[in-house]
């Protein structure tokens, strides 16, 4: 089990009902982590439409979970 903090923004936060949560997870990589959280919170957006960031920098879906890291799932942006 790896303890991570997950940040939710925009529609993901609305669906999760919280802006962040700290969880003990045993997902193989960030893609598996999203799949499991998507099931838990009913996220409508597939991983293919998201980007993922770890500790404030964009990361790869196949990166593993690091103990104590802060993970953000980035839905399609709409600034400007």
């Amino acid at each position, binding site marked *: 089990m790896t303890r991570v903090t997950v*940040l939710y*923004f*925009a*529609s993901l936060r*609305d669906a999760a009902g919280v802006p962040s949560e700290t969880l003990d997870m045993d997902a193989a990589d960030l893609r598996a982590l999203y799949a499991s959280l998507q099931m838990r919170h009913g996220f409508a*957006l597939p991983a293919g*439409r998201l980007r993922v*960031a770890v500790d*404030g*920098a*964009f990361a790869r879906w196949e990166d593993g979970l690091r103990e104590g890291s802060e993970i*953000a799932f*980035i*839905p*399609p*942006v*709409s*600034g*400007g």
Partner: protein
Amino acid sequence: MTRFRLAEAPIEIAALRAELACEQAGAYASFEGWVRDHNAGRAVRGLHYEAYAALARSEGERVLDEAMAKFAIAEARCVHRIGELAIGELAVWVGVSAAHRDAAFAACRFVIDEVKARVPIWKHERYVDGDADWLHPPPAT
């Protein structure tokens, strides 16, 4: 140097423009995104922008760094509002100074396009009909 900024209060254009002035610059191009009263055919009553602030600042700065490297420009800045905005308010501002207008226009266009595509900021619109939505547009084709 921070060329990209998030702002929680109205953007002061004159002060930003002054940061771009230099005696070698003969051309200045700027772009502003204003809050419209409609979007995709729906009447908009109000909106707010949310950012993943830490990543928005670093990714925005990266966009400006890329513009400085890619175009023959003197300086560039971009400021994006976050929080609640009224119809007509300035949501995003880009300014670029350069010796010549080709580079100023091209860099200004590059910055707004990349900021809109890459920087983690989200728009939440409230419609006159009472509905509300986060905008998560499909990738540009």
